[in-house]
């Protein structure tokens, strides 16, 4: 889950990006971790997260492995599963992540999770001052913090900024820069609308931490530029 730490973009442009995830520590609190992770995700449903996932089963947006010519052209694609189906499919303990684009929902969800006292480690990846403010509002003292210090080394190998903003929303690198660039071009050329392009990219991020709302905003800006 370092995969949520290095999202590229200027701080002031990240006000709609919050990832909350829960996990058990290996060898510490694994007992009942699957059921606890499912409870964590079910609690999030009432706040309608824009994405959700568990790396063992995939995210809300997922590839369709059983398409046919008839299904594709006459029935249509079904690219998004339901919250309930995803939660029921989780086969074992692992990280459980939800993504929000609304600060108030994050605040209320954190409050709910604290009351549940699941005994899982819960982390929030977002703008640090914003999360610290939320912690203050709900009277939580965070245990630890991890700051991103950015990208270093041979940064000449990185793609251009708009592509990087999209591709780094899957920190495991499953939204490739070439695919992100292709999606920008498809939107720019009017071959796809920004919503379809965002959902298309989200399918590649198996942990479910790709923020589709932010992706649509980036695609919109990039296609105008």
């Amino acid at each position, binding site marked *: *889950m*370092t*995969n*949520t*730490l*290095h*999202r*590229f973009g*200027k701080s002031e442009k*990240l006000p709609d990006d919050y990832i909350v995830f829960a*996990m*058990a520590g*290996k060898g*510490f*609190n694994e007992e009942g971790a699957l059921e606890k992770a499912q409870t964590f995700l079910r609690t999030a449903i009432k706040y309608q997260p824009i994405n959700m996932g568990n790396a*063992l089963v995939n995210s809300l947006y997922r*590839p*369709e*492995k059983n*398409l046919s010519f008839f299904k*594709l052209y006459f029935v249509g694609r079904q690219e998004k599963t339901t919250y309930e189906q995803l939660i029921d499919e989780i086969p074992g303990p692992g*990280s459980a992540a939800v993504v929000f684009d609304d600060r108030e929902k994050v605040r209320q969800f954190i409050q709910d999770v604290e009351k549940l*006292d699941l*005994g*899982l*480690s*819960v*982390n*929030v*990846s977002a*703008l*640090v001052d914003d*999360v*610290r403010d939320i*912690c*203050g509002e709900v009277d939580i003292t*965070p*245990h*630890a*913090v*991890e*700051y991103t*210090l*950015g990208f*270093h*080394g*041979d940064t000449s190998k*990185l793609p251009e900024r708009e592509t990087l903003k999209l591709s780094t929303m899957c*920190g495991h*690198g*499953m939204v*490739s*820069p*070439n*695919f992100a660039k*292709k*999606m920008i071009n498809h939107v720019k050329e009017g071959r796809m609308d920004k919503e379809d392009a965002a959902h298309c990219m989200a*399918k*590649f991020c198996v*942990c479910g931490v790709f923020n589709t709302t932010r992706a649509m905003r980036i695609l919109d800006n990039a296609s105008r530029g």
Partner: protein
Amino acid sequence: MRISKEKCVGCANCVAVCSVGAIYIGEDGLSEINAESCVECHNCYRSLSYEHLMPGPIRIIRRMLKKVGLRFQPDPDLCPTEAIIPEDLEWPRIVRRAFSDPMVTHESTGVHGRGTEEVKTNDVSHRIKPGEVGLVVEFGRPGIGVYFREVQKATRVMAAEGVTFEEGNPITQMMISQATGDIREDVLDEKVLSCIVEITMPVDDVVRTLNVLRGICKNAETVISIGASTVCDEKGGDPLRSILEKEGYDIGWAKLNLGFGRVTNASVTNMEN
């Protein structure tokens, strides 16, 4: 991973989705994978949708459309003929998948993804203690990739500077000597999408260590993403942020462990005792 020449129709959708640009269109107009560049992340196989069309008729349709200046182009997230085929991997190539496929669990640590929990479960593991800083140095991210031989260049420099490598980390587990930073010889020519080296130090030593990392980054042939973590004090603040800001780092995005693992701030309590 390989692409079946019998099934591929050359739509090139897999070319763009490859995490490291290892897929290309060969001279025969069909997709191929550069095995040396491929990191076995399984992204193409796992995340493309399949339409199960018959390759023969599709090739004929493609040729006919081409003659009238048109192009058969399936949805961009689709392999129309299910042409991508995973292969059984043997040591040491299997290491590529262990580090690059987020759905695979690392045998050495029991953690999937990059194989380390870092500070995410620190409220129960106390991996980073009060007064300490953890640096998470990720080679190859985002989307560039790295050979372990290059990672070893960095771990050798770190070891020479006397850093402490985190035990619960798959790179540390692949070292033959933490004193020298040497990684086992048989994996050095393997390429992965990214891998994390974790080191721990007293907060007083973080500036010196960041300078060591600057030297490593200056000579790096890949991109390196760095994270810095520490335990919060009883008010939720920390001494690390001001140090990082003084060192010129722009602090904005971060990850906060809320301490819900039922031992909230236990390490702070221990320190007070």
